[in-house]
Every structure is written in structure tokens, then in C-alpha cells.
């Protein structure tokens, strides 16, 4: 085939351009750390990338929700612990008072302590965490218990958080099982009985059963909460695994293998160098250089 200068320069230019675009590709991969910079370079990678990224965002969001769930449950647990303590103390006081040897002034003192414990229980029922009343169902902006005007919340709606795709976990305890109107009424009655000098030891002893009932309720509720915490912890574990997995899949899918890319870049650079060098040698001489 006849070869002319213009053919050499056109094809040289074309090959240099191809070589440059290869260099650009590797440069892009190195500077972004990604296999592709446009979806069209590999539609499958791009599609999967979008899906994996969404998955990862979801896992990360569920982890964030998890923090909120722990917040609710830990606060409730510690409040229920204090509640049990207060109820135990009430029981002790009742046992003490039912001794019948206590004189009026002493019972008065006990009654005073009962009153204090009752207010303590009120403040426990009104526990706030993260600016929310945690023992008022979904009505978190209002106090559940107000002894001054004898109002007791009846909201028993669960507060649910989504911790896995489609898995909603209630994070609050049902306040009616612990801080019920009945409980506060019973304690009030206990206080009234203590202040009443006619109350007999038997009558006070009878209150013990009532108190035991409330202690049981609290303990049961706490146990149920603990079981749910366990479940949440398992979800936590699973989310951590999933995050690692999702990150890895995403990385496998779209991250460039640096060692490979650098090797390819160096190879390509050599090719380009050779192309430039050979072009400069081919284009330069013509017959003219050898004629006098």
C-alpha cells in the first residue's frame, strides 16, 4: 500500500489520542479511587452502585435509630430500677409500721416518708429523656402523672422505631402497668392509714399484698423490657455485620484496584512514550533531507 505523509500524521494523531484517552481513564480511576466516573462506562456497576449505596444508607440510618432505641430503653430501665427500690422501701416501711408498737409520732414520720416516696414515684413516672416523657405512651410532650390535680395518663400507645427493614420495635414500656392510677391511690391510702390513729396492724399488713402486687408488676415490666433490650442488641449485632458487608460489597463493586490501575497506567505511559518517540522520528525526515 502506498503510504503518504498525511496518512502518517492522521493515524499518528489518532493513535496518540486513543493512548491519551487510556491515560485519562487510568488517571480518573486513580484520582477518584473508583472504577468508573460515568454510568455509561459500566452500566451494571453503576446500577449496583446505586442499589448498594441505598442499602448502606439504610443500614446506617437503622444504626442511628438504634441509638435512639437504647436511649429510651436504658432510661426506662434505670427509672424502673429506682421505682422498684422506692416500692421496696415502702414495703419495708409498711412492715415497720404494722409492728403496732410504734407510737403516733413515729407513724407520723413514716407517713411523711411515704409521702416523700410517693412524690419520688411521681417524678420517676415523669422521667424525661431527650426532652420526652418516656412513660406516657406516644403523648411524650405531656406529664403523665400529676398528683396535685390527680391526673393520670391513660395513653398506652407503643412508640415504635424501625430498626430493620420492616421491623418495628416498641421502645417504651406500657406506663399503665407500672405507674397506674391504682398504684398512686394505694400509696395515698397507705399514707392516709398511717396518719389515721385507728388503723390496726392487721389493716397495715394487708397493704403488703397490694404493695407486693405493684412490685411484681414493676419487676415483670422490667423483665419484659430486658428481653426487648436483648432483641435490640441482637439487631445491633446484625446491623453491624450488615454494614461491614454492605460496605464491602459496595467497595468490591465500584472501587478501583489501585495496584492494578497503577500497573496499567505505567504500561500505558510506556506505550504513550514510545508512540510519541516513534512519531517524532517518522514525521521528521523526508527525502528532502537527503537531497542536495
Amino acid at each position, binding site marked *: 500500500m502506498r503510504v503518504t505523509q498525511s496518512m502518517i500524521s*492522521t493515524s499518528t494523531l489518532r493513535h496518540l489520542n486513543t493512548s491519551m484517552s487510556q491515560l485519562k481513564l487510568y488517571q480518573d480511576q486513580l484520582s477518584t479511587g473508583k472504577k468508573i466516573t460515568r454510568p455509561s462506562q459500566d452500566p451494571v456497576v453503576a446500577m449496583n452502585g446505586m442499589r448498594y449505596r441505598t442499602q448502606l*444508607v439504610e443500614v446506617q440510618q437503622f444504626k442511628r435509630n438504634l441509638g435512639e432505641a437504647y436511649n429510651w430503653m436504658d432510661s426506662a430501665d434505670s427509672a424502673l430500677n429506682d421505682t422498684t427500690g422506692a416500692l421496696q422501701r415502702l414495703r419495708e416501711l409498711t412492715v415497720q409500721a404494722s409492728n403496732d408498737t410504734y407510737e403516733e409520732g413515729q407513724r407520723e414520720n413514716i407517713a411523711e416518708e411515704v409521702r416523700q416516696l410517693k412524690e419520688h414515684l411521681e417524678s420517676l413516672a415523669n422521667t424525661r429523656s431527650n426532652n420526652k416523657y418516656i412513660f406516657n405512651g*406516644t403523648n411524650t410532650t405531656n406529664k403523665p402523672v400529676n398528683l396535685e390535680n390527680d391526673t393520670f395518663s391513660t395513653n398506652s400507645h407503643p412508640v415504635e422505631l424501625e430498626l430493620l427493614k420492616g421491623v418495628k420495635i416498641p421502645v417504651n414500656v406500657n406506663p399503665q402497668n407500672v405507674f397506674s392510677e391504682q398504684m398512686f391511690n394505694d400509696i395515698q391510702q397507705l399514707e392516709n392509714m398511717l396518719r389515721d390513729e385507728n388503723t390496726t396492724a392487721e389493716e397495715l399488713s394487708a397493704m403488703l399484698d397490694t404493695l407486693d402486687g405493684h412490685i411484681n408488676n414493676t419487676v415483670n415490666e422490667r423483665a419484659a423490657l430486658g428481653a426487648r433490650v436483648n432483641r435490640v442488641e441482637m439487631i445491633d449485632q446484625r446491623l453491624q455485620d450488615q454494614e461491614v458487608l454492605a460496605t464491602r460489597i459496595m467497595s468490591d463493586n465500584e472501587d478501583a484496584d489501585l495496584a492494578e490501575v497503577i500497573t496499567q497506567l505505567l504500561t500505558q505511559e510506556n506505550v504513550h512514550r514510545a508512540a510519541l518517540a516513534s512519531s517524532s522520528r517518522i514525521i521528521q525526515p523526508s527525502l528532502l533531507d537527503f537531497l542536495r
Partner: protein
Amino acid sequence: MISTFHGLETMRRALSTQQAALYTTGHNIANANTPGYSRQRVNFTQTEAFPNPAFNKPGIPGQLGTGVKAGEIQRVRDSFLDLQFRGQNAKVGYWSTKYGALERMEDVMNELDNGNAKVINQFWQALEDVSANPEDAGARAVLQQRGVALAEAFNHTYESIETIQRDYRDQIGVENSRVNSLLNQINELNKQIASVEVHGLLPNDLYDKRDLLVDELSHYMNIEVERVPSGGNTKEMAEGRYTIHLLDNNGQRLNDIVLLDGSTFEYNQVTVTDADGGQLDGPVTEIIIGGTAIAFENFTSTGSLKAMIEAYGYMEGGEVKGIYNDMMRNLDTMIAVFVEEFNNVHSSGWSLSEIHAGEKANGGAGYNFFEFSDGHGGGVQGSAKYLKVSAEVMSSTDNIAAAREVLDGNGNPIAYAGDGSNALNLAEVKDAQLNYGGQTASLDSFYQGIIGRMAVNVSEANSMTNNYQSLANSINERRLAVSSVSLDEELANMIQFQHAYNAAARNLTAVDEMLDTIINGMGRVGR
């Protein structure tokens, strides 16, 4: 009898012929870099030998040659390669233009790291945060702003596509007038060529110019060139006038349309029009060539004009189609379906302000989260362009309905501030299987489908462009191998012609000396 001056005459011819060859070499060298130039060569032929075989021929031994003449100056070109090149060039034009259009769309919708999918994800996260902290004004404010970001992202995408589409409309106008200008120029060249050819001359440089223009025309549409002889005293090698036919994508003549008629020196104006026939502002309906209108769906001539119209938008079977229109329609469908469902869920819930008031707003209808600004016709079209967060939600984050309705002790509907279950329901709309224009999918998967199809189209267009480009390149290479100027070759020729010229001159001197001997040296015996 041989003339006394026979030798002089022979060498005179040799000198002028070698000179012509040298000049042609000069012309070749001068045009070595001229686009479309084909190298020219002088065809040398011997002049008629002496004597002619006739009855009273002189009795001399054999025929005596009388020298050389320049037969004609011919351009070296292979018209079959031209034919092949133009066929490929039309395909390169089609695919490269299509690739360009798709690539610009991909620039707008590059979903790798910072695309609309990310905005959707962030919006979803904000919903989850509100569901965890429904009474928190901060979480609500984030949701409101993420909603704004979502709306703006889609407004922006839509408007960017519209801008590109408008650019393409102008581009079609430019391309259209370029086609007409090419036809006009080829027509003018036809006239010039015809007027030169009839005198038995070969207008090589005009042929080159005309072929270059035809090459360019073949980028815009698939064409076929037919030669019409000029008549008169034309040479056998004369290429005649060109008649240009429009071809469809199978290489068959399209509706027998003649773009340019070489026999009548007339060409047909090409006009791209939309429904109202005036300035192009709507989708293309037809292409008028001369007096013939071809509906665009029947305009199957591969080339950049077709690709550009396919990008910009056209009517087919009463429907608007086109790369950009399809994408806008997809976005509109996606937003319209999503917003309808999202608003349904949102308005069924209770906002903080409704909780305070103790009853649902708007007479029980509740608040919408998204709405469309003025200019939206109410249908699906334009949904992505006019999407915005509703005025109620913009005026107060308390109007975000995160709570679900429950019944109080008396059986009356009520809701509580700490209830984030409606926000959760809203978050689930992202994954809800909805009917997106006949396709059941979730928001994510529908969007991924849009991007996926686009990416596949871009990559197809890219590889088709490369394929046809390399085919066209290799044909062009073969064309160059035949026609382009090799400087080495020209220099070698130059030396050859120069030496021949010098030798002829030397021969002339020898003849001169011979004559000198006869004229000045003879008859002087003894003097």
C-alpha cells in the same frame, strides 16, 4: 523526407511536457495538506510516429518517433472508495450525534456519587429521624429542608434537560441551513464543472472541491451520487455533474427524492418543521424537501440530522418522542406517582398543629407535603419541573404530619405528639410498590431503571460511534493511500522530470550543434 528541424521540434515537445509534469508536481506539493485534494498526474503519451503508413510514405527504415505530449492531467482517485466512505460516514454522523446528545444528558444525570438518588436517600433518612423524634423541631426542620432539596434536585435536573433540548433545537436550525448551503455549493460547482468539461478539459480541482462537499453532506444524511455526463466535447475521463439522491437506512432510495438534480441544475431546499410549520419550537413533525413533505417517522435516512431530531423530540403516531422528552416523561411519571402516594399518606396523618387544635386541618383533609407550583397543568407532565414543598409545610414544620390517628377513650380520633408512626409510613413510601406508568416498582428501582437504561444507551451509542468511526477511518485510509500526496514520491518525480528536462535541453543542444555544422560549416571547402 524528414524535416531538418525534426529534432528541434521533438525536443521542444519534450521540454514543454516535462515542464508541465514539473508544474503538476509543484501543484501536488503545494496541496499536500489541502483537505480533499487528490494528487494529480500527467499522462504522457508519445506523439504520432513518422511516417504515417500511407501510399506515398517515404522509404525510410521503420517509424521515427516524434516525441511526447501531455495527454491529460488526471486526478488519482477511486470512486468506489468514495461510495463506501459516504455510507459509513452517514452512520458515524448518526451515532456520534446521538452519543453526543446522550452524553450531555448523562452529564446532567451522573448518578455515581452526588446524584438525585443521594438526595432521595437523605430525604428518607430525615423521615426516619422524624419518626424517631417526632416532637423534635430540629428533626422536622431537617426533613423540611431535605424535602426542599429533593424538589430542587428534580427541578434542576428537569430544567437542565430542557436547556439542552433548547440548544439542540437551535442546533437543528444550524444543521438544516448547513445542509442547504452544501446543496447550493455543490449545485454551483456542478454548473462550473459542466461549463469547463464541454470544452474537453478536466477541472480536477473543482472535482476535489465537490467531492469534499459531498463527503460533508454524507455526514448529515445517507445519500447516493449519480453522474450525469456534461455532453459536448467532453473527455472520456470527465466526471460529469452530480445528481444526489436521498437514501434510507438500507441504502434504498427514499421516496425517490432527489436532493440535487445535475441535469437541471436545481436543488431542493430541506426544511425541518414542527406542527405549526413556522419557527421550530415544538417537536418535529416533518421534513420538507422541495415540495415533498416526509413525516419524520418515515424519514429513515441515517445521519446526524436524524439523530439530532431524535434527540430533540419528534411526533410519532400522535405521541411526542425523543431522547430528552422520554427522560422528562420518566421523571414526571416518577415524581407524579411518588408525590400522590406520599401526599396521601401525609395528609392521613396528624401534624403537631392539628394535635394542638384537636382536629384535622382543611376540614379533615389534612396537609399535603408536596405540591406543584403555578404552571403545572395538573397532569403528569411537568411534575418534576414544578415540584415544591407545600406552602403549609414551608410556613411551619409543625404542619408535618408525623403522627397517626388513634381513637381516644370516647372513640374520637386523636393523635399524640410523640407518635412518629406516620413518619415511618412516609418513609415506607420509598419502598412501596407503586404503578409508575404501567410499571410496578419502588421509587428506587424505577429511578435505577431510568438511569440504567440511559447508561446502556450511552454506552451502546459510544461503541457504535467507535465501530463506525474506525470503519470510516480504515476506508478513508485506503482512500488516502490512493489519493493523498506523498512528498517523497513528488520529490523523486521532480528529480526524474528535472533530469528529463535537462536531457531534452542537452539533446536540443546536440541538434543545434548538428544544424550549426550543416548551416555554418558546410560549403566552405578550401576557405
